[in-house]
């Protein structure tokens, strides 16, 4: 099982990838919505505690691999200012079959929102982002 983790200020993009023996690739993108707490926004700003955030992501995926074996997973999370419509996180899971891929995808996101030290630190309302 291989894991790739990136926490970056750059726009996220996962290049296509095929792992021999994998018949399922499940992918999730978490995108910044235009509404936060009922108010229109232009962007969200994220911060992370590095390298702890990367370490916790790897630990979660390693745990999940024991229950739902998979071959490869990529987790890319953006920090800094993320404009509305752009991805704050992109995750994919490559597994033999869809059941494992979907299970890891869903459970990982639940664990990320509980344990990975990454925060939305502010919503930016201005149309012009700084």
């Amino acid at each position, binding site marked *: 099982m291989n894991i790739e983790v990136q926490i970056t200020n750059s726009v996220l993009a996962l290049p296509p990838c095929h792992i021999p023996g994998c018949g399922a690739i499940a992918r999730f993108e978490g995108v910044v919505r235009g509404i936060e707490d009922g108010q229109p926004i232009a962007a969200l700003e994220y911060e992370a505690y590095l390298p*702890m955030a990367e370490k916790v992501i790897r630990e979660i995926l390693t745990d999940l691999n024991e229950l739902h074996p998979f071959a490869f997973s990529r987790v890319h999370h953006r920090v800094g200012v993320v404009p509305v419509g752009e991805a*704050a996180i992109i995750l994919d899971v490559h597994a033999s079959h869809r059941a494992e891929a979907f299970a890891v995808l869903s459970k990982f996101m639940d664990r990320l929102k509980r344990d990975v030290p990454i925060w939305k630190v502010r919503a930016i309302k201005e149309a012009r982002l700084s």
Partner: protein
Amino acid sequence: MKVLYFSNAASLAGCREEHWEIDSPISTEEFWTEALRRHPQLASIHIQSRLASGGEYVPQKGLLDPREEAAIIPPVSGG
């Protein structure tokens, strides 16, 4: 001991990093006593926050090693 503050812990403390003069391991309770003495505003997030030492979460009854970086981890909100 190097102490890091993130997210609303940093806003409430008014800083992102401090150095505490501590030379032996301290309990989580002793850590919070010192943190709240320095920054009483942290009381508003004390209950919901976790502590990390050396990049790992510290159990409620655990110890923080002064040689390791410590951090206050408010409720996370990634993704």
